[in-house]
Each structure stands twice: as C-alpha cells, then as structure tokens.
C-alpha cells in the first residue's frame, strides 16, 4: 500500500507537467504563450505576501524567544496531563498552528531524543503530519487577495487544530498502546 502511494506521489507532478500542456495542445491552445501569461501573476502574488508574512513571522519569533510560549505550556500542562497527553508533545500542539518550520524542527528533535518508534515519536509524527500551519495558511491565502476582515476563519482553524491534536494523541495511544 505504502509502496503504491509513494509511486503515485513521485509520478504525480511530472505527469501533471506533461499532461496539462499536451492536452492543451490538442485543444489548440498556444501552450507556451499561455504559460508565460499565467506565470506573470506569480511574481506579484509572492511579493504582495511579504508584508503579511514578515508581520506574522516577527510576532511568532518574538513569542517563542521571550519564553511566553514556555509559560503557556507550563500553565496548560496539568490540564493536558489529566487528559493523558504526554507533556513532551504539548509544546508541539502549540507550535503546530503557528509555525510549520518551527514545529517540524521540534518534531525532528522529539524523534531524535525519544526515537521514531517510541510512543512520543509516533505521536509527534502524527501531529506534525495531520494538520497544516493555520496561521501561515490564513496569512498567505487572505494576504494574496487583500482580505482584512477574516471573520470566523481563524477560530475555525484553531478549533480544528485542537481537535486534530487531541485526535492524534488518542489515536496513537489506542493503536500503538
């Protein structure tokens, strides 16, 4: 099963890159001109994201460096310990929605320290793989079109992160326990 899935993932992108222009050529689309025309938008979109991402990254980076993050972990730890969540993975639950690179580094560290086949290693892998970085997705998607009022989108994202975190812990305890 896993073999299959990896084969599909490695073939998918090259297959798409070849298939889309080929199909378009049959439909008499001037493929290269069309490509260049669409690609023009990419640069502007990426550049327009700079203020949004700089703003977010500064706040996240300060938050972690100041020790504010550790303080929140210390406060929350007893509550989550009561729910049988191992204390080691709690910082990961807080990091996951705010920074993709940061939480990946933290996961890698947990895997290194406790081993990939330990319960903590498995839980950390599952948490890291099961959700995306809510704050990043929100910043990039809304930043790209200039939305200021995001309504309830952040609440929904953070709520699903919490549910996903708890689900990851409990499913691992159940499956590997």
């Amino acid at each position, binding site marked *: 099963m896993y073999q299959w899935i990896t084969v599909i993932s490695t073939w998918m992108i090259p297959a798409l890159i070849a298939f889309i222009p080929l199909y378009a050529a049959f439909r008499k689309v001037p493929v290269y001109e069309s490509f260049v025309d669409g690609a023009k938008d990419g640069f502007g979109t990426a550049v327009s994201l700079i203020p949004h991402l700089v703003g977010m990254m500064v706040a996240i980076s300060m938050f972690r460096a100041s020790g504010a993050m550790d303080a929140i972990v210390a406060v929350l730890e007893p509550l989550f310990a009561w729910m049988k969540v191992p204390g080691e993975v709690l910082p990961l639950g807080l990091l996951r929605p705010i920074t993709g690179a940061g939480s990946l580094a933290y996961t890698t560290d947990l895997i290194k320290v406790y081993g990939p086949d330990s319960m903590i290693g498995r839980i950390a892998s599952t948490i890291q793989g099961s959700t995306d970085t809510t704050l990043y997705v929100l910043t990039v*998607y809304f930043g790209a079109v200039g939305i200021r*009022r*995001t309504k309830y989108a952040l609440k929904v994202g953070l709520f699903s992160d919490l549910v996903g975190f708890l689900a990851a812990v409990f499913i691992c305890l159940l499956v590997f326990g």
Partner: protein
Amino acid sequence: MVNWIWLIMIVSSVMVAAFTGRMDAVTEAAFDGATTGVTVCFGLISVLVFWMGLMRIGEDAGLLSKLASLLGPLVRLLFPDVPRNHPAIGYIMSNMSANLLGLGNAATPMGIKAMQELQKLNPDKETATPAMCTLLAINTSSITLVPTTLIAIRMSYESANPAEIVGTTLAATAVATAAAILADRWYRRRSAKPPLHTGGSSAAGSNHSAALKGG
C-alpha cells in the same frame, strides 16, 4: 481577531522577556522573524510563477471546468454559494486534490488562485466571504494521504517501520477536517442569520480595529 492575536503575541513577548531577562533574544528574534518572512516569500516566487503558468494552460484548455463538472457535487455541497461553472470551483478542486496527494508546493498556488477567483465574486473586497472561510478551513486541516516529509525524517532516524504513522495520521487528519467543516458550517449558519442585538458589539469591534490601525 487576527489583529488581537498579533498584538497579544508581540506585547506579551516583551512583557515576558522583561521577567525572563531575554530582552536581547527578543530583539534578535524580531529581526530574525522579519528575515524568515522575506525568505519564505522569495521561496514562494519560483513555485507560484511556475504553477500559475501551468494552471493557466489548464484553464485555457478547459481542463479546470472539466474537473469542476467531474467532482462538482462534493464541492457544491461545501461551497453552495459559488456558481456551478465558475473557474473558482476548478481551482478549489485542484487545491483539494493537491493537498490530498501531499503535493504541498502545488497546493498553495492552486489555493491562492482559488482565493483570487472567489474574490471576484466578493461584493466587499476587504471582508472574507463564507466560501473563502470554507476553503481556508479545508486547507488549515489539510487532508493528507501521505505525510512524505515525516516518513523521510523517521527513516533517517532508523525507524523499524517509518510508514506506520500513515494510518494514524490519516485518521487524525480526517477527524480534524470533519471538525473544521462542522465548525465552519456552524459559524456560516450563525453569521447568515439576520443580526438581532449585534449593534453594540459590532460598533465596539470597529473601534478596536480602528485603534489597531491607528497604532
């Protein structure tokens, strides 16, 4: 809400640093963060330029509308207020499929294109529409079939079975996505109702955002 989170993160960092004596580290972190933000955007340039070019070929060839009509029913259920043959549907579909296959760097450009199409349908260009919120909900919980990065990391630390987390990840991601869709539905329905007593609170809300913009 983003305004508040941002403000709280920054102010609390400085306040906590005053207690922990990490003021130097916080200053350094602020500028490091700014550098990271720019680096990430620069990394996105190549990805966005390439995929947006390729997606335009697909759009000109009518592939997107074909994809939209093929998998339309599911998307219509999630995005009832987007017109049937609108290009947004095609981009939403490609974004969801890219996420599913774990093609992270293809999923983002497609998601951004979907947002840009949804923005064309938006009467108020600064406020998110329900459809945008749903697209975001799906992407923040991101259903992934294969967490390729994680498998690679587990391999490099000599796991006996690097792929054993595929099943647990899939289960956890399914729960998270279901929670996101349900929460999104709940808020969508609630915000669609005519406001009864919100006069005071919305006025207070706009004061807050005005104060934040001013500061």
